[in-house]
């Protein structure tokens, strides 16, 4: 479904170049969910944004459904692939009602039967019709993230790109959103590519996980290896250990990768 080969992304020019992604390759099968983990600045979001063509310039090839992506985004692509952002507070236009937010993709792609679809989308993400005319500031963070998911799903795409969809949320709300994502994937057979720096969250959703560090994939492993088995890389082990809570002795042994 998604094939990424030797992806590189650079920002800036000349001496100021930041090489954010340096030759990343992986494939995601149809209906699979694939996770990217790593520390802040390791290039996770950049990979996602390159696939979504938010940063249109990249090196290497990305194929979706077998077709290589060009740097010009086509409108049809939006129907196939959608993205959910990290910050539910920033991803919704503050002056648009939920209704307007959900209506917009339908208008852009000239899809008919708008009212029914909007109602259906709301109920899909577990929100009642009373939310339809609210503004983003009138609903909670978890509910906002659901709206963002609803917007991404309203065009019925096959692929969902998720950039830390829960890291801004409270634990209890995080659980709601994670459940929703799981349910939708099961019901619709969606393909997920999810970024997070919380290993537990990634392992909860994804079958396979790539660990990134400084623009490269350092290790690719399955969720079960991550859980039970020993990750091969020290870096991954350190990440795992940090997820497990504070351990004075373990912290002493941390290495900084710079």
């Amino acid at each position: 479904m998604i094939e990424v080969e030797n992806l590189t992304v650079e920002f800036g020019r000349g001496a100021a170049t930041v090489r954010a992604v340096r030759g990343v390759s992986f494939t995601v099968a149809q209906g699979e969910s694939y996770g990217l983990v790593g520390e802040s600045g390791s290039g996770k979001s950049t990979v996602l944004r390159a696939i979504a063509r938010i940063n249109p310039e990249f090196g290497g090839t990305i194929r979706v459904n077998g077709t290589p992506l060009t740097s010009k985004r086509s409108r049809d692509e939006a129907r196939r692939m959608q993205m959910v952002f990290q910050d539910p507070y920033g991803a919704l236009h503050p002056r648009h009602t939920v209704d307007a937010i959900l209506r917009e993709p339908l208008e852009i792609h000239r899809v008919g039967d708008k009212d029914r679809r909007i109602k259906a989308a709301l109920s899909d993400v577990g929100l009642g019709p009373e939310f339809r005319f609210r503004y983003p500031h009138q609903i909670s963070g978890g509910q906002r993230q659901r709206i963002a998911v609803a917007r991404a799903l309203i065009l019925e795409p096959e692929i969902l790109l998720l950039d830390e969809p829960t890291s801004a949320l409270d634990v209890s709300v995080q659980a709601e959103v994670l459940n929703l994502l799981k349910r939708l994937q099961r019901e619709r057979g969606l393909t997920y590519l999810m970024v997070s720096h919380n290993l537990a969250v990634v392992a909860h959703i994804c079958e396979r996980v790539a660990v990134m560090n400084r623009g490269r994939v350092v290790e690719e492993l399955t969720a079960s290896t991550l859980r039970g088995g020993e990750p091969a890389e020290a870096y991954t082990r350190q990440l795992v250990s940090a997820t497990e809570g504070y351990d004075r002795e373990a912290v002493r042994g941390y290495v900084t990768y710079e």
Partner: protein
Amino acid sequence: MSAAADPQGAGLRAWLRSPSPASTWQARAQRAYLGWVAFRANPIAMAGLLIVVALVLAAIFAPLLTGSRGLDPDLPNRLLPPSAEHWLGTDQLGRDIYDRLIWGSRVTLYIVGLVSIIVAPIGLAVGTLAGYAGGWVDTVLMRIVDIFLAFPRLILALAFVAALGPGLENAVLAIALTTWSPYARIARAEVLTIRKADYIVAAEAQGASTWRILRKHVVPLCLASVIVRLTLDMAGIILTAAGLGFLGLGAQPPLPEWGAMISTGRDFLYDQWWVPTAPGAAIFLVSLGFCLLGDGLRDVLDPRSGEA
């Protein structure tokens, strides 16, 4: 409050405060209502609103409020001091100053209205386009804006009026042409802060065209700050119009434009103080009204100021 005792009032209030609005309409009404509640709590802003409303009422009901249109000279009765018959006295041609002020409110509103509908769209269009498109479009547009900014304002207005010929419309047009540039800057600055926002990116990811993003996403967000700035600038606009009037380039006689009234009345300040003072006070009051209103609006509309 009496509204609480009134069941219908209470019902309306409940409707307005209901946490889950049932329609877009209700949601809008609620926003307006809550804004209004915040606004009402601000005495300064209310004072501003009161003044502006009074101006509008004066303009609408001018025929009822006055005894004459204040246009016909009445030479024997010139320069009468304020009295029961002439509340604000009469001017150098014997016209009732109060009548002229009231009719002049129409002119003032006309100026204010016309400038607003010219300045805001131009400023918004240029600013949002420059900010959103970036690159050479931005560079070119901003250079133009800079040129207009660097031009001495009154001079530019004067030049335009001189070129177009004196008269109220032309004066207003000239003012508009000299006022739009800061709006473009504001709008651009605003766009630059939101251009990278996720909701814009999200809209792009939906496949929205540039035009659609500007219209539906960017402009609505800049509008608030532009409107606020516009009300704050209103004082300046009225005063520039008055300045053009002062230099004899604004409204043509006998139109009771306030600036022109001060201008022609200024020679009487020392002996018949009421002639220039009445229009001066009117301009002062209305400018103050707009300033206060703008300040209040900013507190209500702009989440960055105030704590509520």
